[in-house]
């Protein structure tokens, strides 16, 4: 199965270094800059990938602290800790940071690290652009976080920033928020261009599109989604900017605009955006499940087509976020059915993962635990999504905690668990050491318990009518909220274990061979662990091989 590497290539790798410190020296031979400049100026996909992942991790903690402020306030009914105004800033910043600062950069980081390794390319197609798109992010989120210290406070209108709430009634810092989102958007777009250019042009000779690992496939489709919808987001926030500062009336009914237009434009971006945050997760899980079930992925081609169908359908469902704005029956029916249609390709994926597990010789290392939890809990989130798709039911669920439960189930045990699973899976490749299995299990079980304690009761409080985004609630929701808050703190604190695992793994641990996991078959496992700074300078030749997957 392993591709034949040209001898000269193997030689270089065998002389290549095995620890991070020596890898740096390897770089010195090329006369690269040192110290901080090495990271500011790097064009190496692995270093940029690491930067992305570290950035995303720090944003994950900052956004997590904001969430814990929210959960602390909601621990008991009544206003306890923070002003309602500040509470609104926390919910808004939590959403914005997690979506644009944590989940999206984490996937881009994984893409940077793994896509060149998985397609047998020496680097990304546009390495300097890669550097630029990363360094835009600290600027964007530095700016966004700085709004917390501005007069009037940070944005307080929810991560969906509905106009005219955000344009007429938002704080003065809204303009800074728009600018930071512009920068973050440009970063994502440049990242997407780079990924498309890499995948389409830099695959090893002999690797056809249908030979690509699913993580590569899902990212290719995600990148197209990014190209299609990030400009729409840029357009919407530009219109907001003009409404606020230049006297236009795109969303102001007083001047002939239409607030509902904002919602249409926002969700035309927003719905594909939620698939941008989950498709690469599908790719990661599709790599991990076969590796630990020691069976090839069941239904590779159907996985690719399912991903593509989800991506196409994502452009036809945006109105299901706004069923209550007052729509004609025909529109409600259309968007209800298209939304439910998405369950079909998603069901195909879940079926394929389960069938891959069927009669496999499964072992339960930490990456597999997170991947299995992903399958179960993402499916729960998918089912509550189906409930929300039913128009008459949605009239009741709209803007309640049921919605919060739904999207946290698909984003936390969905996207975030997949990212964590990916990190555990590829850590041996990144550091040369296996992550600590015992700590990893603690991290996993505490995370699973924390996540379910936090978000499962939200289904009930939502069905009972507890509204979103309010710092206080009626007494009958007290128990549910106390459980949610306790769960939130368990989940939050247990992520410190992840940091401990990461530090331990970088500093030492059981040495990992090139093929760190038994059943892992993709190209990245043919280069040594840790992966040297430069890999596949001569592409592996796959032309002589039998087709890998079918």
């Amino acid at each position, binding site marked *: 199965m392993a591709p034949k590497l040209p001898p000269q290539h193997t030689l270089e790798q065998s002389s290549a270094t095995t620890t991070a410190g020596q890898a740096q020296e390897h770089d010195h031979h090329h006369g690269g800059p040192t110290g901080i400049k090495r990271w500011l100026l790097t064009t190496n996909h692995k270093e940029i990938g690491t930067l992305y992942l570290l950035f995303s991790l720090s944003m994950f903690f900052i956004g997590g602290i904001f969430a814990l402020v929210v959960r602390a306030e909601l621990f008991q009914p009544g206003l306890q800790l923070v002003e309602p105004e500040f509470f609104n800033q926390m919910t808004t910043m939590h959403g914005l940071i997690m979506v644009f600062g944590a989940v999206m950069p984490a996937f881009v980081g994984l893409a940077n690290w793994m896509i060149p390794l998985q397609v047998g390319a020496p680097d990304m*197609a*546009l390495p300097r652009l890669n550097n630029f798109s990363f360094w835009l992010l600290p600027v964007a989120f530095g700016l966004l976080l700085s709004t917390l210290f501005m007069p009037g406070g940070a944005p307080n209108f929810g991560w969906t920033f509905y106009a005219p709430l955000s344009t*007429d*009634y938002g704080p003065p810092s809204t303009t800074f928020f728009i600018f930071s989102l512009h920068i973050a958007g440009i970063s994502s*777009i440049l990242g*997407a*261009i780079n990924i*498309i*250019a890499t995948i*389409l*042009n*830099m695959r090893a000779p002999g690797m056809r599109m249908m030979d690509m690992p699913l993580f590569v496939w899902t990212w290719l489709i995600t990148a197209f989604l990014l*190209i*299609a*919808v990030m*400009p*729409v987001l*840029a*357009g*919407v926030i530009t*219109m907001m900017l003009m409404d606020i500062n230049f*006297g236009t009336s*795109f969303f*102001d*009914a*007083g*001047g002939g605009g*239409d607030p*509902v*237009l904002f919602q*249409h*434009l926002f969700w*035309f971006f927003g719905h594909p955006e939620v698939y941008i945050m989950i498709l690469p997760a599908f790719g990661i899980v599709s790599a991990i499940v076969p590796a630990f079930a020691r069976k090839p992925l069941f239904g590779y081609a159907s996985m690719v087509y399912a991903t593509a169908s989800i991506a196409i359908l994502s452009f036809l469902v945006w109105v299901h976020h706004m069923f209550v704005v*007052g*729509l*004609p029956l025909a*529109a409600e029916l259309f968007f209800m059915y298209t939304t439910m249609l998405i369950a079909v390709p998603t069901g195909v994926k879940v079926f394929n993962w389960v069938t891959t597990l069927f009669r496999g010789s499964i072992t339960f290392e930490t990456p597999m635990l997170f991947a299995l939890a992903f399958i179960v809990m993402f499916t729960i989130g998918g089912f509550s999504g189906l409930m929300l798709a039913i128009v008459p039911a949605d009239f009741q669920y709209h803007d309640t905690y049921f919605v919060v439960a739904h999207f946290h189930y698909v984003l936390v045990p969905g996207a975030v668990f997949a990212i964590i699973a990916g990190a555990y899976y590829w850590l041996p490749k990144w550091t040369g050491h296996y992550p600590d299995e015992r700590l990893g299990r603690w991290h996993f079980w505490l995370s699973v318990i924390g996540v379910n304690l936090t978000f499962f009761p939200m289904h009930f409080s939502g069905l009972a009518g507890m509204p979103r985004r309010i710092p206080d609630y009626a007494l009958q929701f007290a128990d549910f909220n106390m459980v949610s808050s306790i769960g939130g703190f368990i989940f939050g604190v247990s992520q410190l274990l992840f940091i401990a695992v990461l530090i331990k793994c970088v500093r030492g641990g059981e040495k990992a061979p090139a093929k760190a996991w038994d059943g892992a078959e993709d190209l990245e496992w043919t280069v040594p662990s840790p992966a040297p700074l430069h890999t596949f300078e001569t592409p592996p030749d796959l032309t002589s091989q039998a087709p890998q997957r079918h």
Partner: protein
Amino acid sequence: MTPVQKTVTRTVVVLIGMFFFAFALVPLYDVFCRVTGLNGKAANQPQAMSNEEADTSRYVTVQFITRSSKGLPWELEALTRQVRVHPGQPTEVEFAFTNNSDDDVWGRAVPSVTPSEASLHMRKLTCFCFQEQLIGGGERIEMPLVFQLTRDLPEDINTVTLVYTLYPVDNDNVSQQVQTTSLEGGDA
């Protein structure tokens, strides 16, 4: 061009296309809504009365709701909260504007029709909402709305709600409007 350059060029073209598409959606949405009436916006021009006979076989309840908004010290009151009309029957209702401040202020009432399907069937012959109003400090003015629901109003619509929301008009916008409004004011 290298293959990479080709890919990047194509992607950037799509990218720019999508950015302009987002802006093109604004007029497209407007046209779409004008044709289908989906956003509940009624025509903002006086329409001729259609000389169809009232359909006395059915009644439709028309409700009037008024709302003020931030930045305009006005009060708008529907003197008739609700009327029962036959489709095709022209009806006049009165609205009272009160300026609670001491200054002359420009403002405008923006209408919205619910359910939105009814907006295409709502013909307004006279409405205070067709132009900006200037109301003197402390003044109270009554203004009429004459409307007619067309006979082809869908059968399942039994209640139509008209909402008027008050919006302030910027001073710089007013300067352009003074001429037209003063002309119309002369007629009245």
